[in-house]
């Protein structure tokens, strides 16, 4: 297959708007011409999943540096009491750490002002066990959000709860999703002004995907914006909805056969961002249902898309579809990182998105125009993204469907070039994005499937194997101004943790076999590793403790898709004994399921 990685230092960049050619010299580790964005004073807290509304996952703390990170050591650990994929991240607000567990979604509030971090309170919600069997990809939770003295998070079974952050008392609880329909809610809520935005998983169950906004004070549903259906259901109003590439109305119906959009998927289970100047919330939608694409001819808008909505009333302002007529389960739910970057010599307000489909996009976040789209892993289902049309140039030999039988050797797999559950970090000092990636390829055999409410609506078998080079994952640094990898740390297994970047020029990530690592943000040299007892599928955070020191916190607890793919890591149910997966035969040698919160410091 073709390798797209560009490794030359001197590059030619096409200036899209003026049509002139400009040459930019890229110094590894720094994007030339990048304006030094003044870093806001960092108060040391971590109040929302992505650290800030731009979702940079960047901390302004600089006590930990490449010179001293080798001395990082654990200062505390706590067993969550739950075995399951520990996705998401803790929050730290006013010297309190908030931890949400996987199902049954206990919330712990630890007092960081006391030496042993005892609990202030814990909240143990009544959550339905039915939801566990309807959550396609382990009973994970992607975190809480702090706003207005409240902690907000979702229970797996379709409820959003708001708690008083000081006392843990429940303020309100709203039913947002229906488990009997195949909907579950592991997503972290996203609060903008007085709106709590939430979405549902269920692309594997043929849901009709949506985003809802709840009132922050009362929990009442203020609006529901569907991801497909008539324009009225999309909240796509004439004169307001202006997608950059697609100008017809009713695309949420016309790009589907008959009523297929009603069970067409487009779950919302990833991360959201917000630009307060443009007043736009950005989020990605997931895969179309079913996985067998021949049951849903057409582009299937707006699955696998980025949506830009006004938080107050949900009006859809623009949308862009990364993978039209997705035939490989390329959910577009990975984060949208909002930064100002030079592209072709001009500073642009963009969003950067690392898609499951293997391409990294730099998009004008006001209009939805794609400025840069380059592969960040090995990709062969498409040759390139045509920037005039915004559409991928698909290799037709990689299309899937029942009539095509077993299509072999497609890269990346349906886990994606990166998992959307493993969010990216950005450093305004290096102007680089730090990405956990998978290096895997797959065969894909589609099968006919019927929609039975509450049961999986899939229709595909897709075994995986390691991609070129034999290693299965890598942690990469990416220059989104031009679209190229700057450095790579190869890992034995797919890298499934999130990333955090710091002003000390150290970045942190974790591995599937249970290593927490620190790397030099500029060079990619690994400077510190510590085995945390179970694979890391959650997102590290960095915060300032009451003593003024810098701390690193992360969950350990393998799961998420790996609960399905590597079932022999499970050891807690004698009635569920599985052989090792063909492509990760020895993962269970290095990890089993777990549930720990770790805190490290110098």
């Amino acid at each position, binding site marked *: 297959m073709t390798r797209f990685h560009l490794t030359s230092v001197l590059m030619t960049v096409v200036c899209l708007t003026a049509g002139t050619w400009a040459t930019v010299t890229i110094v590894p580790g720094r994007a030339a011409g990048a304006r030094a964005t003044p870093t806001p004073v960092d108060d040391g807290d971590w109040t929302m999943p992505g650290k800030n509304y731009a979702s940079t996952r960047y901390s302004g703390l600089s006590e930990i540096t490449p010179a001293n990170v080798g001395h990082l050591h654990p200062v505390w650990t706590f067993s969550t009491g739950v075995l399951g994929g520990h996705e998401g991240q803790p929050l730290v607000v006013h010297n309190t750490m908030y931890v949400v567990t996987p199902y049954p979604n206990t919330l712990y509030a630890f007092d960081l002002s006391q030496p042993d971090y005892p609990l202030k309170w814990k909240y143990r919600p009544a959550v339905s066990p039915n939801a566990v069997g309807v959550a396609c990809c382990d009973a994970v939770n992607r975190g809480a959000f702090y706003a207005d003295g409240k902690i907000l998070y979702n229970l797996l079974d379709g409820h959003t709860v708001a708690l008083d952050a000081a006392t843990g008392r429940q303020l309100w609880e709203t039913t947002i999703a229906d488990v009997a329909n195949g909907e579950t809610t592991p997503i972290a809520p996203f609060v903008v002004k007085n709106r709590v935005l939430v979405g549902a998983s269920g692309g594997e169950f043929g849901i009709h995907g949506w985003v809802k906004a709840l009132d922050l004070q009362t929990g009442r549903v203020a609006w529901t914006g569907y991801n497909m259906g008539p324009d009225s259901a999309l909240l796509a109003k004439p004169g307001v909805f202006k997608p950059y590439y697609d100008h017809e109305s009713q695309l949420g119906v016309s790009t589907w056969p008959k009523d297929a959009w009603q069970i067409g998927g487009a779950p919302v289970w990833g991360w959201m961002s917000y630009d307060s100047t443009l007043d736009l919330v950005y989020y990605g939608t997931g895969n179309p249902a079913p996985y067998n694409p021949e049951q849903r001819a057409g582009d299937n808008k707006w699955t696998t898309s980025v949506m830009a909505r006004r938080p107050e009333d949900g009006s859809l302002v623009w949308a862009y579809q990364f993978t039209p007529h997705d035939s490989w389960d390329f959910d577009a739910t990975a984060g949208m990182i909002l930064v100002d970057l030079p592209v072709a010599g001009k500073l642009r307000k963009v969003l950067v998105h690392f898609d499951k489909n293997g391409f990294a996009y730099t998009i004008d976040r006001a209009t939805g125009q794609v400025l840069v789209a380059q592969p960040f892993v090995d990709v062969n289902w498409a040759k390139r993204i045509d920037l005039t049309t915004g559409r991928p140039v698909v290799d037709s030999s990689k299309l899937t469907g029942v009539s095509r039988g077993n299509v072999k050797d497609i890269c990346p797999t349906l886990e994606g070039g990166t998992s959307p559950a493993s969010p990216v970090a950005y450093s305004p000092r290096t102007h680089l994005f730090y990405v956990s990636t998978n290096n895997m390829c797959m065969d894909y055999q589609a099968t006919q499937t019927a929609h*039975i409410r509450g049961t999986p609506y899939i229709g595909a078998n897709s075994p995986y194997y390691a991609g070129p080079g034999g290693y299965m994952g890598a942690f990469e640094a990416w220059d989104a101004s031009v679209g190229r990898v700057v450095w790579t740390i190869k890992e034995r297994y797919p890298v499934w943790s999130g990333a955090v970047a710091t002003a000390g020029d150290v970045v942190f990530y974790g591995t599937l076999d249970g290593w927490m690592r620190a790397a030099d943000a500029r060079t990619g040299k690994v400077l510190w590793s510590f085995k945390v007892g179970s694979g890391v599928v959650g997102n590290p955070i960095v915060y300032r403790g009451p003593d003024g020191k810098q701390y690193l916190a992360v969950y350990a607890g393998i799961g998420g898709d790996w609960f399905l793919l590597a079932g022999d890591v499970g050891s807690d149910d004698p009635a569920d004994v599985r052989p090792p997966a063909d492509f990760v035969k020895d993962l269970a040698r290095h990890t089993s399921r777990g549930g720990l919160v770790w805190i490290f410091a110098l």
Partner: protein
Amino acid sequence: MTRQQTIRRIPLGVLALVLALGCNASHTDASRAREGAPAADKAPPLAIVSESHIAAGGALPAGATLTNPYAGDSAAATAGAALFTSMNCDGCHGGGATGWVGPSLADGRWRYGGSASEIFTSIYYGRRYGMPAFGGLMPKAGIWRIVTYLQSLTLPNDVPTESWK
């Protein structure tokens, strides 16, 4: 009948059914009491009620007999394998029932029992943690075919031990 059972949560449909039957039972008990006969609870126990389960398709199943009419029938096992796919069982339990979101059904180990009647009950009424109640959705014969299929699976040579060189 309802007085003598501890039921934590009763879906409305079952409650209606129970009340209807209960009304008949208490009428009979009352007349027996007047005649001096013991008000014995002769009614059969209610169909198994999980504390909570999804009824696939929205309908709750009624009671059923628990003898597999297809025991040992290889044609039924083959039909059951096809149903395992067409009813989306493989979507949760994996192709060949080797486990996915739902547990492996091919390892000879059973959370709720591996006899034909226990497997039938699990499929028919559903189980905690999200196994839907397929009895509301497909005929009992189809469920028995799936039971026959699952019981026909060959176990791996060594289930308990996983070793690496």
